[in-house]
């Protein structure tokens, strides 16, 4: 696959395609081959359903052959070879910056998203939301057209409307999501030129505005902070969940894990301290973690700064400051460790912390001489001046005061997310003309005059910059399924009242970045590579502003120690659906939260101690009241959470968005069977945005919590979090590793083997059958030291292998279908404050697979490439294999999940387009499991045969990747041919940390693990 990644086919041809009639037909889903497969696939499943009723028919299956039409092209675009996928470079706008992607398309329909190896923000990797974007594209619940006050309208209607209403004399306000688009920025200038005294405000509920404001206060300039985690030796995270949150988390994960990679005992690794209230993904990877209230993080920061101020210059503002953390052991230890690593350390603050914290952190990094070494401050040209938060508040107040004729909203959903005391809806009422561009007919859309349905980024022309400023172009993979418009076409229409072609608009913009002489060639190169290299933002030289000290002094005054028994409430963006924007993507909803393993819901997270004080346990409903607002939520005990603090994820409790995002249990609600003993309460809403107010944006210091006595069932995929002293996920400290490199394999004693080296097994009773040596022998290695537990592999697998979403009830019953799950274990003696270790578990592909011998019909057997193959169409569903699988990686279709998943919604055919034509859609009653993406392996193998005229069956090392490996942002997964001694995977497996899970069973898995290494500070214990 990646072989093709390196030279994806040129865009030009598909571009011509876009203008030809036939291609449009195409999008009415008349494919030569695959559409028919899918359609027929469904009919077959229906057939089977009927078979369930009348078995007698079975023999005649063949007679009832459905007449099947094949629709060829009129003229086939040269590069399209039916049956062979094509790969195009594009980029995904993610929370205000772009990440480069490569998209796999089958006969014109995108089916899989991969990272673009050329693109610095991706480096070939993606995160869960990017993997999920495919399902977002084919979401039947997206808005299907333009509406005005509930009436369906055409694009021309909108144009004429725009022409009359957006005349230059109007006073127009623009409210825009964080968006790095260069073209949008260009049009923005036009807009501000046309509409005198217009206002342009950027609004993100969980954006980087606080960080920017902090830097603004520190340096007198709005700068974007970028941390080079790969270069740092010591990292201090002050409530900074940099591995999960923030638009650059893919880059962060890559850098962070690179900074910890251990090839041998000689290598060194970084050390991560985390200070936070919630148990974040970052915290779960930290070497040391301090759990304090969210409201105390600020105090801790100042205390740290103060203690540093005594040792180094540049922090005079903090001299003499002290609070109850000043003689906390952490402060002294951190001070020492940071000073020992001047210029090689990072102090990072969470986006949701006050500007003051960010200002202090900026000062600390300056003082530690980290600037331009481990920390860069980028000057982003597209930013407006001023404090975005304040400007948004003012704008809203002005709107309410009726100071504007028109409000133009781009991609935001303020009615849902804006602080409740602002009462944004009344602002909408107060404004004469309101227009919104968004993908769903969401809360805001329902209150605006005009709603234009937005094109998905895979359907649109666009451009933008990565977090660090690298410019890329977004090119469409498919015509807008619902005729949606991109933000640039929309804005252009508003300004000019005429329709502008996205393609032209973008080229227009890029003329200024490319030399006019050979524009076309450069343009094609950019489209091909996906980036315009070496275009990072510039990093101005900065120094602490004169007003910094006074600013901090005000901050000191405001920062108060919260009462010990005060309960605080913290609102965090959700790990999967952020602020709800990805809420209708089933894959993400069903993905277990990396730390709590909860699916489909948000809960009130609290520590053991706190839960005890309220007398609640998991799934007990508590009512949380603050500032007159009350929300009822299920309590969930999260060991390691700060005491007297409650964390709730935002983005849930939506209404009328779609069948996934809405407040119910996913696609299995109505038409499906419900089990009696398992009863569920429904609530008005699990929406916590009402708590957000202008003066308490994201946390409240004193809230009242009551146990309601109700019970709300939560679907968590892992009920048991202790390893029970079993050596499953193995870890050690850096020192133990250096003293005894083989500590990991030795953790489980296996008879007949002293020092377990790679592929050394105890004898079996018989000589096992081997794979054929002319074939590749596939093997995998998962490095627990790199794995951060984000769950991207799960979604990538789901996208690649047509794995259905089963809905909350089924997950609750333990019937989730994920082929690769990430186990999360709590370690440590203190139940209140445990460590966490993550362990992804796909099928181990045992050579002596216990599952195979027990299948009565030989539906699961061994391939000669060493795969433990699962033949769906042979399976009769005894589930014996699943029982006998010690790793519990087999998944059973208890209902006709695929059918329900693929045929639900208003426009079922659309979701079918997301399916991978190379993988069978599994029907009811069969077992399924990971097969190392055998469809990719076989394709690579055959391609290799074609290349070498059959002389070799073994794909070149690295030319084939499994979906999980390719997506993994931490590069934790290695995969390849273990019969080739020089392959990467073999090299990795030779590492001393290599061990086999449950090797006492002598199942001889092809998948092995590398033990996790922690790097604790000896002074801490």
């Amino acid at each position, binding site marked *: 696959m990646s072989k093709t990644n390196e030279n994806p086919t040129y865009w030009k041809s598909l571009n011509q395609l876009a203008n030809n009639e036939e291609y449009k037909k195409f999008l009415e889903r008349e494919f030569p081959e695959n559409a028919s497969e899918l359609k027929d696939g469904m009919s077959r499943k229906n057939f089977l359903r009927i078979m369930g009723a009348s078995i007698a028919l079975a023999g005649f299956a063949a007679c009832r*052959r459905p007449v099947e039409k094949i*629709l060829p092209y009129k003229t086939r675009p040269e590069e399209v070879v*039916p049956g062979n996928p094509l790969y195009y470079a594009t980029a995904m706008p993610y929370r205000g910056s772009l990440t480069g992607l490569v998209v796999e398309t089958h006969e014109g329909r995108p089916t899989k998203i991969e990272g673009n190896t050329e693109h610095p923000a991706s480096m070939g990797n993606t995160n869960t939301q990017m993997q999920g974007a495919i399902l977002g594209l084919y979401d039947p619940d997206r808005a299907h057209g333009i509406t005005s006050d509930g009436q369906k309208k055409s694009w021309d209607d909108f144009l004429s409307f725009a022409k009359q209403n957006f005349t230059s004399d109007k006073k127009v306000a623009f409210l825009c999501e964080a968006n790095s688009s260069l073209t949008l920025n260009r049009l923005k200038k036009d807009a501000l030129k046309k509409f005198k005294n217009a206002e342009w405000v950027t609004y993100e509920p969980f954006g980087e505005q606080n960080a920017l404001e902090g830097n603004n206060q520190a340096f007198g300039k709005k700068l974007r902070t970028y941390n080079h985690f790969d270069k740092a030796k010591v990292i201090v995270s002050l409530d900074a969940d940099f591995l999960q949150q923030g638009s650059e988390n893919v880059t962060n994960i890559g850098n962070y894990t690179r900074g910890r990679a251990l090839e041998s005992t000689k290598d060194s690794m970084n050390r991560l301290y985390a200070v936070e209230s919630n148990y974040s993904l970052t915290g779960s990877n930290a070497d040391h973690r301090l759990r304090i209230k969210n409201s105390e993080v600020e105090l801790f920061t100042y205390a740290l700064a103060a203690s540093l101020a005594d040792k180094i210059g540049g922090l005079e503002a903090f001299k003499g400051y002290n609070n109850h953390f000043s003689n906390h052991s952490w402060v002294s230890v951190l001070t020492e460790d940071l000073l020992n690593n001047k210029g090689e350390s990072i102090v990072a603050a969470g986006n949701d912390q006050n500007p003051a914290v960010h200002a202090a952190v900026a000062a600390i990094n300056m003082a530690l001489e980290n600037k331009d070494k481990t920390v860069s401050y980028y000057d982003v040209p597209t930013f407006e001046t001023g404090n975005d938060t304040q400007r948004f508040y003012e704008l809203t107040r002005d709107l309410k005061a009726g100071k504007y004729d028109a409000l133009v909203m781009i991609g935001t959903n303020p009615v849902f997310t804006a602080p409740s005391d602002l009462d944004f809806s009344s602002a909408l009422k107060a404004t004469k003309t309101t227009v919104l561009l968004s993908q769903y007919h969401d809360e805001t859309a329902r209150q605006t005059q005009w709603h234009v349905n937005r094109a998905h980024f895979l359907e649109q022309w666009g451009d933008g910059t990565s977090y660090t400023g690298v410019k890329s172009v977004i090119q469409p993979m498919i015509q807008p399924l619902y005729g949606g418009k991109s933000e640039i076409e929309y804005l252009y229409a508003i300004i000019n009242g005429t329709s502008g072609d996205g393609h032209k608009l973008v080229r227009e913009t890029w003329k200024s970045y490319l030399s006019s002489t050979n524009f076309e060639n450069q343009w094609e190169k950019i489209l091909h590579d996906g980036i315009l290299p070496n275009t990072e933002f510039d990093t101005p030289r900065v120094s602490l502003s004169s007003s910094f000290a006074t600013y901090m002094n005000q901050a000191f005054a405001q920062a108060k120690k919260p009462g010990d028994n005060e309960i605080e409430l913290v609102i965090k963006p959700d790990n999967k659906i952020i602020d709800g924007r990805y809420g209708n993507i089933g894959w993400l909803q069903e993905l277990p939260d990396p730390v709590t393993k909860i699916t489909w819901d948000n809960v009130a997270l609290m520590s053991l101690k706190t839960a005890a004080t309220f007398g609640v346990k998991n799934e007990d409903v508590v009512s949380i009241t603050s500032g007159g607002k009350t929300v009822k939520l299920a309590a969930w005990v999260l060991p390691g959470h700060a005491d007297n603090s409650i964390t709730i994820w935002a983005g849930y409790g939506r209404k009328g968005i779609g069948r996934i995002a809405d407040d119910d249990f996913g696609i299995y609600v109505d038409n499906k069977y419900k089990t009696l003993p398992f009863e569920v309460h429904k609530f008005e809403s699990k929406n916590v945005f009402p708590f957000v107010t202008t003066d308490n944006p994201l946390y409240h210091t004193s809230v009242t919590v009551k146990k309601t006595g109700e019970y709300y069932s939560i679907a968590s995929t892992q009920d048991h979090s202790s390893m029970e002293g079993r050596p499953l996920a193995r870890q050690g400290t850096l020192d133990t590793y250096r003293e005894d490199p083989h500590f990991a394999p030795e953790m489980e004693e296996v008879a007949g083997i002293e020092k377990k080296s790679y592929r050394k097994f105890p004898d079996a009773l018989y000589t096992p059958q081997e794979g054929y040596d002319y074939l590749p022998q596939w093997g995998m290695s998962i490095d627990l030291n790199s794995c951060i537990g984000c769950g991207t592999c799960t979604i990538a697998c789901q996208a690649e292998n047509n794995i259905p979403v089963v809905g909350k009830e089924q997950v609750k019953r333990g019937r989730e279908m994920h082929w690769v799950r990430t186990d999360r274990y709590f370690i440590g003696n203190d139940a209140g404050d445990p460590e966490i270790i993550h362990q992804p578990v796909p099928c181990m592909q045992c050579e002596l697979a216990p599952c195979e011998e027990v299948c009565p019909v030989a539906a699961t057997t061994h391939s000669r490439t060493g795969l433990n*193959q699962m033949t769906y169409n042979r399976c009769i569903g005894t589930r014996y294999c699943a029982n006998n699988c010690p790793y519990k990686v087999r998944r059973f279709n208890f209902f006709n999940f695929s059918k329900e998943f693929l045929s639900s919604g208003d426009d079922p055919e659309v979701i079918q387009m997301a399916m991978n034509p190379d993988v069978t859609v599994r029907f009811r009653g069969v077992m399924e499991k990971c097969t190392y993406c055998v469809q990719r392996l*076989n394709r690579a193998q055959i391609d290799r045969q074609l290349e070498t005229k059959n002389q070799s069956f073994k794909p070149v090392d690295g030319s084939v990747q499994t979906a999980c490996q390719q997506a993994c942002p931490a590069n934790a997964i290695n995969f390849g041919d273990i019969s080739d001694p020089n392959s990467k995977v073999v090299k990795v497996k030779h590492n001393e940390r290599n061990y086999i899970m449950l090797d006492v069973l002598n199942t001889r898995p092809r998948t092995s693990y590398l033990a996790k290494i922690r790097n604790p500070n000896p002074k801490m214990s």
Partner: protein
Amino acid sequence: MSQIFPKWANRVPKRLTIGSIVLLNAIIFGVWYFFSPRYLDVGYQPIQPIPYSHAIHAGKLGIDCRYCHTSVEKSPHANIPPTQTCMNCHSQINSKKPKQIAKIRDHWKSGEPIKWIRVNKLPEYVNFNHSAHINAGVGCVTCHGRIDKMQVVHQVEPLNMAWCINCHKNPAPHLRPVSQVTNMNWKAPNGNPEAYGKKIMAARNIHAPTYCDGCHY
């Protein structure tokens, strides 16, 4: 007591036994024959929207298969030619059936694709790769029969799994030089396909997978 059964009843048991044995065999044979793909699928010959004759094009005119089915060598799928391919010739050449040519031209003008009806079809859960087979030297005729003699295409082989496996277990008799795959009346020299195939297998390093996920995934 008086007799319950008449005298002839004593002959019933033996006849019953023999009868049921005969019946059983009849049923087994019936199922074995009439439910087999060889009976059900072979000879499936739908009426195509345009009575395109392979006999004329491939047979009489001797156009190579790959002229239309271009992707067969490089893709799993052997594509159905786009209307354009027909037009390449029929924009100039008029044939004996002007009405049919007119149809094609209409399709070409309207851009409406021609709705051909599929003849040779494998279930969705089978991944058959044309390129792999062509590359190995399996002739078109092996699975599709003498297309060049078919006025209307029909299915000639049962295409059931046992049939596939049979060849995968012993490909030799079905192999030929790659240059000859599209040649419909190629015969193995020395008239011994088995031996000739064995040579090809050795020379071209041919191994046909007989494990499941060679085709099923």
